[in-house]
């Protein structure tokens, strides 16, 4: 039972990252190694605002960090991904890898590799005789609302419709006058802001290091794939399940094997099932 609850807390942060990842993945369909680095950049921006610039309120600096990280995400998209958009998914994968290398080394150069401490507080709260960090609770409460917001806005708003149109066929969407560039920028902004929030939560836990994000981009990718293309419900459930899986792997296996085993489990599920869950059916021809 304990493991289940702990798994949910871990899973909710994975789902948080995976939402942004899946949003970009469903539009451009490329494996984005840079997303993990956005997490790291977001956390460092928050650190910079809070400590170096000395913004007095932590929440204010979180808010500004989210805005700035969103901008950074949009900027990266303009530099590294936009010129490749009508090339192939593979070249976007390559440039995301290059971006990841650059961001990591920049962070190491500027902030050094030893952990930076984001906050000197990390309050806990006791719910039903179990102790949680407040940030865990916040993430767990925000998550369902976020999922619902995503679901509703994808289904019923103009932007959601445009995103779905681009996801199903970019060229045709451009042809009927959907402002592709704006929409993609908006989704990069949203994804990067979410990643920043996740990065802050991770940073409050264990300090900031330049390599803190790489793992999460792999996990988010696994969750996005197993969820199926363009399904936000799938991402939510997949992220939570992945957290639980990871938790059990550490409890009954070992730390070394946990990452590999949970990935292998995902791969096996895909092998047996042959496709993602919650996949939206697209017409093939």
């Amino acid at each position, binding site marked *: 039972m304990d493991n289940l609850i702990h798994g949910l807390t871990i899973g909710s942060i994975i789902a948080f990252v995976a939402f942004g990842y899946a949003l970009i993945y469903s539009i451009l369909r490329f494996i984005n190694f840079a997303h993990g680095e956005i997490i790291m950049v977001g956390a460092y921006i928050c650190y910079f605002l809070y400590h170096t610039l000395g913004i007095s309120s932590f929440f204010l600096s979180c808010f500004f960090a989210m805005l700035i990280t969103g901008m950074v995400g949009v900027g990266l998209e303009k530099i590294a991904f936009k010129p490749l958009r009508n090339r192939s998914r593979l070249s976007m994968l*390559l440039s995301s*890898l290059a*971006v990841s290398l650059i961001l990591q080394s920049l962070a190491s150069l500027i902030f050094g590799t030893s952990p930076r401490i984001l906050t000197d507080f990390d309050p806990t709260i006791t719910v039903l005789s179990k102790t949680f960090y407040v940030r865990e609770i916040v993430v767990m409460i925000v998550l369902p609302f976020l999922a619902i917001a995503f679901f509703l806005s994808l289904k019923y708003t103009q932007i959601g419709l445009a995103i779905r149109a681009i996801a199903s066929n970019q060229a045709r969407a451009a042809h009927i006058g959907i402002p592709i560039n704006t929409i993609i920028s908006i989704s990069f902004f949203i994804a990067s802001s979410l990643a920043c929030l996740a990065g802050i939560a991770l940073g409050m836990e264990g300090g900031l290091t330049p390599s803190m994000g790489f793992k999460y981009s*792999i996990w988010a990718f*696994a969750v996005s794939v197993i969820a199926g293309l363009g399904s936000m419900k799938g991402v939510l459930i997949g992220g939570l399940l992945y957290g639980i899986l990871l938790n059990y792997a550490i409890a009954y296996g070992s730390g070394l094997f946990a990452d590999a085993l949970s990935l292998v489990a995902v791969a096996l599920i895909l092998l047996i099932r042959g496709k993602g869950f919650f996949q939206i059916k697209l017409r093939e021809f």
Partner: protein
Amino acid sequence: MDYLASVSAHILLYFIFIAGLGKYILGKSSVWSIGHIAFWGLGGLVVGSLTVDFGVNAWIALLASVLFGIIISFLIGLASLRLDGDYFVILSVSLSELIRVIAIEYRGPGGFNGIIRPTFFGVSLENDWLFIVLALCPFVIATIIITLRLEQLHLNRIFLLVKENEILAKSFRYNPVYYKILIFCIGSFFATLSGGLYSLFIRGTDPSTTTLYQGVLLFAISLLSGINTLKGVLLGALLFVAAPRMLEYIITAPGSATYSYNIIQLVYGILLLIVVLLTSRVPVYQK
């Protein structure tokens, strides 16, 4: 001269690997084997375990590792190559992590030590240069000949057809899955071979060369350079092996006591980005 020997051996070994991954798997099929480094690790693991634990002759161990690699890749291909590209990526990534973890669990993070290099018809290969000339060069030349020969075959045409358009291949009665498995096995053969040879060269195994990050980097470099020509494969091997060492030499050379390795990483990343943005070599992947 020892340093030069080490650098040349690395270039030759990664030449074989990138030929397998870039020229075959990425060049002749649409299989995204991001974790292909797993087979490099597998080759080392099998060679190390057979020679150190069971005292088998190194050549036989190398043969066994290659056969093992082919069998494993065949099974994986059989199970998974029906899947969509991105699902295979997950499988490939998890495989590479799994093999690395198994290697660490089996023999510790340091890997095997004390593999004895084989002899070449009575000639001891303990000297690095002898090893390069008598053990590595024949394999590299064989790789080149096999690759050039395959270009001439009808098989090559079928591979390209399957890569470009699976529906058309099915219309022409070629089962795409068979050909994908075949090409995956060939690519894995080269990867296992290079991994096995590497463990013979360094007289041990080294799990830290098989991390996912290394694998992704190698995948990227194979993709950039090795797709169409063997010259590209050579360029890729140079890019992967020589470029960081040259940067290192240039940056450390003028008597500087300190500098950060992150500069090298930064320059490397920027180079990669520029090449990706400028090059049109990356093939168009078709759904």
